[in-house]
């Protein structure tokens, strides 16, 4: 008789035992029915005939360490008894997974390598319960995860998945949509701005016609005047722009009352809109004025401005007046471009 047979025929052993060997070399014996509960061990016994003796122990996968193995065998020992009620099993399972997270992770890994599906599910659910409802910091803390993502990656983690064509398409669509919305918003803003200015420019038109009479300089030197205005409007300090905007409403009212409406506004607004869509088309072209001409125009503008300031003290500043005038005179919406420029 061989030694293996002798080891089986022991008087005190009424049950058959199976020998299991962990990766670290330690060997353990366990009752056969308990071991058979594990599909992987069961297969080894049935197909390969191993496990019946100490020197023919079943080699377990390396993910099964001795601590996990003893837990797994406890689990098998309990559940392989057929007479237990569902309640008992559930209560055992709940207590079984109340171990520290490290052991739980090792147990999950071991159960997975032994293909013990019910235990894999039980331990996976337990891990999921630990993760659920916690902040990332808490989770990192519990599982000792390294905090190896950059701040940007944490804030916009999905932005960096650029290799997927679907995501690229999605990002493009979103970008396009965002742009559209922005454009529409800008149009709205400009339109609102523009309408105020339009009203005032009408008043200005009438005032100009009634008061100044400098139409000669107006129509003839159209383009020149336009340039002048643009340049001069640039010169005054930027601070003017702010109060100008605020003062619009205040100025608009008295003008309207005084002068009345001319229904040019709608046409002008439509022009304004067109121009806003294609800003800078003509650009800030220099018409090539010679300096002498420039100076003369400067003086005229200053005169006019002074007069305006004295008659309508609520009306603000030079820059604003000039802009209106240029629009009025130029008629080709250089003002809009300006305001467009300022808005950008």
């Amino acid at each position, binding site marked *: 008789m061989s030694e293996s047979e002798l080891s089986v025929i022991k008087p005190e052993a009424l049950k058959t035992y199976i020998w299991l060997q962990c990766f670290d070399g330690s060997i353990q014996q366990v009752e056969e029915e308990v071991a058979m509960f594990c599909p992987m061990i069961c297969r080894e016994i049935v197909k390969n005939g191993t496990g019946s003796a100490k020197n023919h122990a079943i080699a377990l996968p390396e993910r099964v360490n001795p601590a996990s193995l003893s837990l797994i065998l406890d689990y098998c020992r309990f559940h392989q008894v057929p007479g237990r009620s569902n309640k008992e099993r559930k209560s055992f399972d709940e207590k079984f997974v109340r171990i520290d*997270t490290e052991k739980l992770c090792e147990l999950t890994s071991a159960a997975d390598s032994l293909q013990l599906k019910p235990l894999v599910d039980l331990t996976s659910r337990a*891990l999921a319960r630990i*993760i659920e409802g916690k902040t990332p910091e808490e989770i990192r803390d519990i599982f000792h995860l390294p905090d190896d993502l950059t701040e940007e990656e944490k804030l916009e*983690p999905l932005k960096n998945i650029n290799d997927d064509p679907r995501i690229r398409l999605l990002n493009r669509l979103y970008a396009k949509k965002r742009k559209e919305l922005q454009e529409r918003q800008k149009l709205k803003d400009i339109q609102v701005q523009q309408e105020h200015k339009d009203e005032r420019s009408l008043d200005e038109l009438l005032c100009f016609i009634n008061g100044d009479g400098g139409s000669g300089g107006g129509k003839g030197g159209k383009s020149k005047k336009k340039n002048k205005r643009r340049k001069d409007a640039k010169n005054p300090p930027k601070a003017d722009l702010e109060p100008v905007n605020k003062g619009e409403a205040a100025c608009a009212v008295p003008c309207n009352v005084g002068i009345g409406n001319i229904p040019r506004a709608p046409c002008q607004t439509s022009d304004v809109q067109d121009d806003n869509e294609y800003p800078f088309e003509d650009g800030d072209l220099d018409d090539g004025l010679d300096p002498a001409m420039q100076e003369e125009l400067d003086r005229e503008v200053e005169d006019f401005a002074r007069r305006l300031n004295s008659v309508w003290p609520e009306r603000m500043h030079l820059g604003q007046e000039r802009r209106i005038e240029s629009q009025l005179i130029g008629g080709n919406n250089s003002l809009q471009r300006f305001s467009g420029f300022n808005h950008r």
Partner: protein
Amino acid sequence: MAYSSFTQRQFSRSSTSGSTIIEQTMSSSSPGHARRLFDGMPPKKKRKSPPPVSVADRISALPDSLLHHVLSFLPAQASVRTCVLARRWRHLWRSTTGLRIVGLDDEVELDVEDLRKFVDHLLILRERTDLDSVEIKFDEFCEEDQPYVKTWVRFALMCKVRTLTLHVGASEYLDLDDLPLVSRHLRTLDLDGVGLQATFLDFGTCPVLQDLKMSHCNINACRISSHSLKHLTIYCCNSDFDCRIHVSTPCLFSLELSHFSGRTPILENMALLESAHVYLSDYCQDVCLNYDSGVFCGANNNACKNCVPTEDDCSREYVLLGGISNAKHLKLLPGSKTFIFARDLKQCPTFTKLKTLLLNEYWCEGPDLDPLACILKNSPVLEKLTLQLFSKGPTHKVEMKGTYSSVEGPAAISEHLHMVEVKCNVVDEKILKVLKFLTAFNIRFGFV
């Protein structure tokens, strides 16, 4: 610390073979060396200072497939959020084997609208892996949301889902299309708060469907049929139809039919049935017309037209007992007004395999306890009988256990009967009547 981030980078670079890297390092060296690897000593770098006592990151050592499995138990939003935990976790959420499209907070009532945007992103950004289980659960929805929910169901089926759960907690039913459910992989279907129609309930296009549970559903069909179904639960459902629903599930193993509102479904023959639990509540439309006047229809000649089968309609056929008389374990708890069981019993079915039986006071109505007598006489292998009289349980104030000895007297009832229990709240004359009846069969009682 430096070493652990080194391993993380290893994992992310070859995320699908992350486990093999660890296994290679482990198997190519002795156990002692492997332990040192985890102690923070990188194989090529030399450290001047002693390595920090780094508590190993055990969870990231799990293979990808296992982490996908863990993440599939989380609500979808929580699983997506794990992408900010660490480099190893950046893309794990995209390949989970299960999706739980449920809210994060159990207390808040969940609108489909809240879910929609998130789910749209999730379904596009995920990997197209097969899904094992999909759970969709929400409370409120409106007209425009219905196509989205149906699309999510279709998506789940396309991903070869095996377990599909759809729970709608709203006050109206979410109507699923009158289209067949086609899937070669679907095994378990759990529906709650859904409106179902004829074509859907013909599960011929789901050849491996084994578990079907319908709770609080509106079943507007004449037939539920499946040749593969093993477990069927119809709980608190209703039907607007006048005709009875035919349940055709020849391979059924276990059945639960309770609180059905409407005409009781007809159960066709189930040869493999092991257990059936049928509870007909007050919502059941099959009520005895004489009940309110206190006249028991059973034995009388002037029985109402509901209780006595007439020639013209199909009431001559079994409604319930035809299907479930093959079972080994029965729990039959009809409401007192119903007539179905009494009517079925008139056709004298035999319960050839019945081993355990649980009945309520319905069976003990009438002067001679006819229904109980009938069923006892026709159960040749009955082993355990439990009578739950006027007490819903689970605990009962009075429990009596009786034993039966077949030696004395004729074997009117099963010879194998070894346990009879009577559970009630008070021992009044009705209970005494039952006890007297049972003692006539040589059943002796004692108090527990």
